[in-house]
């Protein structure tokens, strides 16, 4: 067989296997904006709540347009205690990490904008185990409510780093967990690299949830399980370590914090559908479903977490 024939065969094969793709314009009507809640309370931390609105899906999104979706005149209360409005251009340094983790955006990026959130500054609102936190939001003539139970803290039996079988330097975080013998236990995992390693990898400004971060004991109630997690990283990140073969991996030498949180089942149910939607990314093979919110009268999630932290160094 001549090289030319081989080339044609290969070209033909690629021709058959490859699909054609093009960017299209879709004329989709924009519905009336709806209110969205993104709020959380953790053990030992004050509650932080953001109130935003939906936007037309295909409308342009720059930082200003993003900032305009934040509602800065809402009345927000938790367990009947009003939360204080704090905007990004006036945020106290002590609260910056909370803002960053809640929004997933660094304080530097939002410094020039007025992105407002609501923080529970009353000591009575500092998150405590086995406590239910009731949220009420009044904005634009609407009342949104929710309740989230902050469960007791449950620490993993152990957490460790292990190399991926085919790699001498990349690996995952493994966790051994003994689940209580009661149904409906739900969990969430976050990771954050905290120091540059010998390869000068980036550190993470905040915690990021890895894919599959939300799970419940549907299939392992009362059992001890061993599971692994990849590294959480920012969405659409273009940092060198977040792309290519090192994407989603921890690398030998990385120092990172493994944050393990217990939460309530409705919060898990929200993030279960959230991660399914993120994972399918508009795939035609997935059913087009909206998220299972725990907000009465609106969209989004009001979450309570009981968290523990393990600091690890990735070693072979």
């Amino acid at each position, binding site marked *: 067989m001549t090289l030319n024939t081989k080339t044609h065969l290969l070209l033909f094969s690629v021709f058959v296997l490859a699909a054609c793709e093009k960017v299209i314009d879709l004329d989709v009507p924009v519905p009336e904006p709806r209110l969205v809640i993104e709020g959380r309370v953790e053990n030992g931390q004050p509650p932080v709540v953001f109130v935003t609105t939906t936007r037309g899906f295909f409308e342009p999104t720059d930082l200003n347009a993003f900032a305009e979706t934040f509602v800065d005149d809402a009345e927000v209360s938790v367990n009947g205690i009003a939360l204080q409005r704090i905007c990004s251009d006036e945020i106290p340094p002590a609260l910056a990490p909370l803002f960053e983790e809640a929004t997933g955006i660094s304080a530097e990026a939002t410094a020039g904008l007025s992105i407002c959130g609501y923080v529970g500054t009353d000591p009575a609102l500092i998150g405590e185990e086995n406590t239910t936190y009731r949220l009420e939001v009044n904005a634009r003539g609407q009342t949104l409510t929710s309740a989230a139970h902050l469960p007791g803290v449950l620490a993993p039996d152990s957490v460790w780093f292990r190399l991926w079988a085919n790699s001498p330097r990349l690996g995952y975080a493994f966790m051994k967990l003994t689940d209580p013998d009661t149904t409906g236990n739900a969990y969430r995992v976050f990771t954050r690299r905290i120091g540059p390693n010998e390869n000068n990898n980036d550190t993470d400004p905040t915690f990021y949830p890895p894919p599959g971060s939300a799970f419940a004991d549907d299939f392992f109630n009362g059992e001890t*399980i061993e599971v692994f997690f990849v590294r959480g990283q920012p969405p659409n990140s273009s940092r060198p370590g977040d792309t290519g073969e090192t994407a989603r991996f921890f690398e030998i030498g990385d120092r990172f914090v493994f944050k393990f949180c217990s939460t309530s089942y409705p919060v898990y149910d929200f993030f279960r559908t959230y991660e399914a939607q993120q994972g399918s990314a508009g795939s035609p093979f997935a059913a087009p479903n909206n998220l299972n919110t725990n907000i009465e009268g609106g969209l989004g999630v009001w979450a309570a977490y009981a968290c523990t932290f393990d600091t690890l160094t990735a070693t072979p």
Partner: protein
Amino acid sequence: MKIPQVLILKFVIISALCAPLSVQGQGVVKGIVTSAGSGETLPGATVTADPSGKGTVTDADGRYALELPPGKYVLTYRYVGFGENERELRIEAGTSRTENVALAVATLREVQIDAARQAHLKGTQMGTTDLDMELIETLPAFMGEVDLLKTLQLLPGVQAAGEGNAGFYVRGGGPDQNLILFDGAPVYNAAHLLGFFSVFNSDAVDDVTLYKGGMPANYGERLASVIDVRQRSGDKNDFHGRGGVGLISSRATLEGPIKQGKSSFIFSGRRTYIDVLTRPFINEDAAFSGTKYFFYDLNGRLDFNLGEGSDLYISGYAGDDAFGFNSNQTEFSTDVDWGNRILTAGWRKRVGDKALFNLSGTYTNYRFGFTGGQDEFELRVRSDIRDYRLQPDITFYLGGHRINAGVLYVYHDVSPNNSSAVQGETVFDLGEQQQFFSHEGAAWIADEFDLTDRLRIEAGLRISGFAHVGPFNRFVRGEFRTNSDTLSFGRGERVAEYFGWEPRFQFRYTLNERSSIKGSFTQNYQYIHLANLSPLALPTDVWLPSTDVTAPQLGRQYALGYFRNLFDNAVEVSAEVFYKDMRNLVEYKENTQPQDGVGNNEDNFLTFGRGYAQGIELFLRKVKGKTTGWIGYTLSKSERQFDALNNGMWFPAPFDTRHDLAVTAAHAWSEKWTFSANFVYGTGRPITLPESGYFIENRLTLQYGARNSFRMADYHRLDLAATYHVNPVRTVTDPVTGELREKEKRVQSKWVFSIYNVYSRLNPYFYYFENEGRIEENTFNITARQVSLFPILPSVTWNFSF
């Protein structure tokens, strides 16, 4: 004056009872119509007796019987792809004579559709189409692979789901509402490669009949249609072979006698080889290195003439699709495979002069498997369905009545989405494996007769029943997505029972020699359902039987049509209107994920609703002359309503196509060249799009609008084909006389050149949305993208026979 309904009813009953009396003193002509070449019987051949205008159609075994007043007649026998045969005979009162007829195969350039042109007017069947493989082979085909299911989708009322979809849709019904029979055995997934090819190797198929309107009482089990595919019998007299070599697959068939004139065999095989051809040329570092895909089919059939009017056949099919991805470039590995296994046996026995007894037994297995791994984690998902069927039935002639009666028993064994998962030494408890056992049965009787010279009736009653039996555990969901209680049923214990009446009625009223009106009513129950998580029809879709929570689907269809032949039967036209009402339709609840059925009953995640479909189908078909073909147009609407979906509002069915047009034409240009073309157009498929979005944890979240409230771009495509028939004879010198003479070549062949999607229309397969960049970097951007599968695609296939 108003006539009481009871009097009308009495008139109909008395007329029916009197019909045999009115033909007393007549004579009977009966016989078997066979192929002169192979000796195969020809079901569906038409027999007309001029000048009486009476006619009939041969049954599944090629037999016919016609009662005629005493006199002299010319009987004309016709069958698709065969030349006509005429017999002159005299009928004596009270006598019966046998006329067995062997029809010679017509060449490709002859008229293809003779048989249908009389049945078109004189049969009671409506919404029914017979297609012969000889006709199908003349039409343009994707990658040169002749495909009968693709050809069926060019008929009005039958809508393709589009490229990359395994299913097709008949008169607003779902893909699970089509019963596809292969030698009487159901085929649960008739698609290879996401629907680009069907499992039916064209060399192994004799013909196919589609019932989409009035369904005879001997058919049931599905709401929308029956596609009855019959496998070829081998030649009982001579050995033959045929096959084809194409760009992506090849096929071969061998047939011949086992015992001369008494028994025969036929075996066929087909396999794609794009994986084999490309493997040596793909660099190990390439992104798709480690990817494999192929499918294959194996067909076989044995026929035995046992003498004394008795025949036996055994046929089988095995086929698989296999996809795999296992590359050293990534930690992921995947293997996906699915396929069918079918075994059938049938025994036919003529009983006396006017009855034919059939007994058939079939076994069907469809299975789907997925294995995915990453590092030490491995997930396996298996779905499996097995059917065991037994069906005795008898057809007999009583006076002017053609009566068919029979029973059907099916044992279903269904295992949907059974999963297992391991992580190193940890074995996850995914609950018990799900398995559903059930018995399905039906009994029917149907009578077809002439009530008057103009009015022909086919009335039938089918009774069906279904029992879901143990062993079975019904999990009752608790507060969370876990089970709070379990109801256990022992082996054979009844979990649920259903029973349904399925009346059938069809009539034909002849207006004149060239036109008739037909009407039909069909009521069906469907006890097994296909649940789709994806908007697309995929091999991952799960078949589920009726259970204590899943009631059988119920469908009622009303149809009325006008049929006319023009230009000495060269052109057939018809217009049919239909309305279909459907209950207990099945969908997954919103936000059900594939893994939710693990450790639970899969049907706990279903929700139930109703639907309707209505439309008009216009059909013009030219069946004589050098140019043949058809134009089919359908205007239709199909909607669904589920309390638990779309806020309880009605929404378009995923396959609702407002306008559907197909034009096909084949032209015999010369002895050597035949040209053909297809053009198809369909309104864009309904889809659900995100109308708005919001950010959670700095990631864009989609908020979808009303279900199926948008439509993709319209679908249209033109295909062309040219067939070159290699000269079938060669010139030789006679060794005795020394003269030149023509001798038929031992191997006959033809080249088929085809172009799929001539003007390279980028029809949408699906839309998806991509967001790039980051909000904080002011680079965030959303784009909508359309994926299309095939632009212009030329191909060439060499077909041969000997």
